[in-house]
């Protein structure tokens, strides 16, 4: 297929953003746990982060004036593609270590794949990112393959 994905876009596969350090905050874990209707006390008290907490932790924070019409920050590691509307796709996690408050985590995001598919209502482009999360000492916390769907 690949009618919509140019060679220039494909050349982005393998590019990565600079590492980002994020400190895990107990209050953030509690807010996440309440809003997602967790039931385990360790999450509601912020003693440990729910598995999916990390999925939201590495979101980019930019000044309000830099947000787009859709409300989203400019996407990093996104080549010029003809489809512009972004939806969450799937995600695959491999967990190596539980996340506790006050830990400092280092995230690295790499564009790992771009694929065009035919959806029910038209063409779709799937972009896959590999986000690794490690402690400052280099211990792997989790690997996350995250898919974004452009339609």
């Amino acid at each position, binding site marked *: 297929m690949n009618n919509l994905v140019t060679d220039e876009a494909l050349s982005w596969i393998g590019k990565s953003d600079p590492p980002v350090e994020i400190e895990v905050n107990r209050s*953030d874990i509690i*807010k*996440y746990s*309440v*809003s*997602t*209707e*967790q*039931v*385990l006390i360790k999450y509601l008290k912020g003693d440990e982060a*729910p*598995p*999916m907490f990390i*999925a*939201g*932790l590495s*979101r980019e*924070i930019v000044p309000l004036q830099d*947000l787009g*019409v*859709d*409300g*989203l*920050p400019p996407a990093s590691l996104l080549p010029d593609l003809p489809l512009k*509307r*972004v*939806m*969450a*796709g*799937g*995600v*695959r*996690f*491999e*967990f190596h270590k*539980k996340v506790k408050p006050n830990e400092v985590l280092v995230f690295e995001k790499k564009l790992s794949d771009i694929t065009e598919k035919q959806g029910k209502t038209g063409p779709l482009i799937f972009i896959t990112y590999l986000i690794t999360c490690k402690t400052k000492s280099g211990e792997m916390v989790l690997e996350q393959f995250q*898919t974004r769907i452009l339609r």
Partner: protein
Amino acid sequence: MVNFREIAAGQALPEREFTATNVSLFCYNAAIWNPHRIHYDETYTTEVEKHPKIVIDGPLQGDWLSQIVVNWVGEEAELLKFDYSNRRASYLGETLKSGGKVLKVDQKTGLVEVELFLKNEDGEITSPGSATVRFNI
């Protein structure tokens, strides 16, 4: 909490229903710092992005799937792998039911594989998933 010795392939995991509201979606998107307008701006969502209603976040549905597993195993096991895919959009006002079943049990290693689902009120699976946990045996 589940007892590892009582787990068998085909066993259903406890199901749970979730109904997102404007307030819960606001809190969730604030908690993860997600300013995407399809989760709170109805006019933009319907007129510009052409969704019928406010969209329930895909990762939130993923979280609801993960809870089926972590609540089932409690402190008896650790989550090693988890995946899900948002196959069908879900909208504000829908009640989604999450659940799953055991696919495989390894009595020697304590590894258990489960498949997961999130269904809408029409019984359609909106987000399938799977997970692997390791019990402390």
